[in-house]
């Protein structure tokens, strides 16, 4: 039994506690003068700062620059999360790698490097895996173009084969007994055909 049952997990309360809570609730509702206590200390400090995780750095104007975001979305965080630097630093706030990498990007940007120079610098320092998508050269080209080319080639082959088949293939009867053989009358066949006209194009 935990004291938390005031808030969540009422299933953890026994009946007496539950009724007690209910009665307390009623009492509170007829005494609206009981005010909720304030959450923070006078200077805007929190009661339990450590509950809020790692202290955050205030956002600067540069953090929101489109060019910085675009660069960071092309670079991978090295913590192993698989996300890009921007997504990691704005999502996984326990990661210490992405804020450091972000500072690295900002430092390079402040030093006057272009986006491409910053990215090239990362590749030099952290290897090709620091790019969210491999550069389009060498064996990587196979990576990019094989699926599309394979589909195109398969489509051409399929078209050629189908053409050949369709030229060679006179209408061949399918397996199964035609309805006529089961004794459908011309009138029935006629009705069926009309229905199919409407339904099955």
């Amino acid at each position, binding site marked *: 039994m935990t004291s*938390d049952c005031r*808030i969540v*997990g009422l*299933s*953890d309360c026994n009946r007496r506690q539950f009724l007690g809570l209910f009665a307390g609730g009623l009492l509170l509702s007829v005494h609206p003068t009981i005010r909720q206590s304030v*959450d*923070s200390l006078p200077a*805007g*400090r*929190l009661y339990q*700062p450590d*509950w*809020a*995780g790692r*202290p*955050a*750095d205030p*956002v600067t104007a540069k953090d929101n620059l489109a060019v910085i975001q675009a660069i960071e979305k092309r670079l*991978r965080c090295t913590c192993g999360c*698989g996300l890009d630097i921007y*997504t990691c630093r*704005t*999502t996984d*706030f*326990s990661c210490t790698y992405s804020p450091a990498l972000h500072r690295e990007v900002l430092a390079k940007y402040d030093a006057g490097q272009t986006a491409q120079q910053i990215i090239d610098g990362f590749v030099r320092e952290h*290897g*090709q895996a620091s*790019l*969210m*998508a*491999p550069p389009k050269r060498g*064996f*990587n080209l196979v*990576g990019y173009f094989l699926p*599309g080319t*394979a*589909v195109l080639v*398969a*489509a051409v082959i*399929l078209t050629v084969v*189908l053409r050949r*088949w*369709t030229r*060679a*293939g006179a*209408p061949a009867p*399918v397996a*199964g007994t*035609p*309805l*006529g053989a089961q004794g*459908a009358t011309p009138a029935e*066949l006629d009705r*069926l*055909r009309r*229905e*199919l006209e*409407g339904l*099955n*194009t």
Partner: protein
Amino acid sequence: MTLLGTLALWIAFLLGIWGAIAGFAGGHSGRADLQQSARHAVFAMCAVLLAAVISLEIALFHHDFNVEYVAAYTSRNLPTFYTWSALYAGQKGSLLFWATVLSIFGSLAQWLTAPRHRVYLPYVAAVTCLVATFFVSVTLFAANPFDRLPYTPVDGRGMNPQLQNPGMVFHPPMLYLGYISITIPFAFAMSALLLKKLDADWLVAIRKWTLLSWLFLSIGICLGMWWAYVELGWGGYWAWDPVENASLLPWLTMTAFLHSVMIQEKRGMLKKWNLGLIIGSWLLSIFGTFLTRSGVISSVHSFTQSPVGYFFLAFLAVAAAASFTLYGRRLPLLEAEAKLESMVSREASFLFNNLLFIGIAFSVLWGTLFPILSELVQGTKVTVGPPFFNQVNIPLGLALLALTGIGPLIAWRRASVPNLQRQFAVPAAAGSFTLLILLVAGMRDFYALVAIALGGFVTATVVQEFARGARARHRQYGEAYALALGRLIARNRRRYGGYIVHTGMVILFIAFAGMAFKTETEATLRPGESVSLRSPYGWTYTFTHLGVSQYQALNRLVTAATVEVARNGKKIGLLSTEKRQHVDATGRPTFEPSTAVGIRSDLREDLYTVLAGVVNGTEQAVYRFTINPLVWWVWYGGMIVALGGLIVMWPGGGSPAVKRTQAGYAVRLVETK
């Protein structure tokens, strides 16, 4: 309880081996006693595996922290809901879950299969037992959920906070149900190959199973997207993560199968291809489980790393070799019964449909495995992230969307030019009109334009089909239009359910296109300060920080930051986002603090707020605000896909449509004679 559990696993293992032997021997020799024994082995395996699951659940609910699995995934203060789902929160439990569900499906297949398809059942029992035995043996020899610790911790570690989300309670089982149930069609396919009974009969026997598996996978994938969106906090729902890709692969091949199988049913063609698709889908589902559970490729979804991967690799290799060898030996029996008559026919469109589905599946698999391949070939590690997948798959996806509109408009066998004109006039006009409106409205993103215009085109094809069908019934039977529409769907569930699925897919594609217009900003705000963000619709949203409050909940310490939201200066509500420090029953922190996002949705866009943290322990909060357009379209699209799937699957209504079409074909044959 752990003794009972382990004992149950051992009995299941032995039963599985016996079931496989009896099933293969009974199927081969025709001995009824062996066949019956195999059938009973499946039922018995199901019963003992259920006993194992119950044992594990009892250990979980009794907080028996001497059991390593219980200590690793639960704590005393974990809400009941999640204590229950801890069964599949970890690798060991989920392997047990896999085996158990497979034995349940196997039993249902033995029990529910129509008498005329019973001939397949001995081999089906054998294959089911074999696969289930593999999973049981992995639990027994590499990942036993009943392993005990040499000591008993006071409390368990608790569940990863990211898994403490309703989406995570339903998403994994749905996905697993999808992965697992495909084993039954695979078992029927193997049985048909072994029996050399390769007419369309076995396809009829597996139709519902394939649809069921497809439906579970569809729902599982959508729930996964929902979970990622509301829980992971990066503001998107699909990251081309290996585990996400792994779930997409069998879905793609199964969707291809659902279409190509119609050609075999109606024309006796594509037998080899369909068998290959079923075998491939099953292998991909095992591959998906392997990727999810082995941690071979690092991913945000892989919560485990272990030697289980080797078991899976060996099993995959053996299973692929065995099934394709058998398949290869039966190829001569799989000749087509008819020839294609025209390039412009429903059959041909289905072939291109399959080409695209398999093409996309290949490109997803290729991208997922490319890092490994690159390391092998060029010795360099590369990352294959969303930019790669988007570049390769968006064009293929759009081609698929176009074909979703074109295919159903083309007649079976051979479409005439007047017929094509009649079919395409309205949809083509609708697509062009949509494009025009978007251009006039100022949209310039190429892919979004194409996706939404194609959406207009496909929607028009579906509306046209429904309207024509309802009108035909109205004319023929004098039914009111609403009734005619209802009966049309009820009597042709397969066809119109399929079109409803297509509508759901259109909505999904439009939703994906919407994400091209996502906007976001970060801000540090003191109470009373605000920041503004312009939405793609031209509105200005203002977020005013109200303050930070802290409180204790059942198993966590919460820091909640709240903003007031105004649209074009008009207040529209509050949004709260939290930092949660999870603790065990003794108050010790268990995991790193996690973030709970605040979301405000309407049909047009979502406002998505994340609390990055607070500055120097004060109420000055760091936020990320994101505007995500059309996110609810994803959830509605998913629901419509599931609804369409249910209509297609609903017993009773599908076959008349097929019969009617077959009859129609027969009529035309009679007439041409």
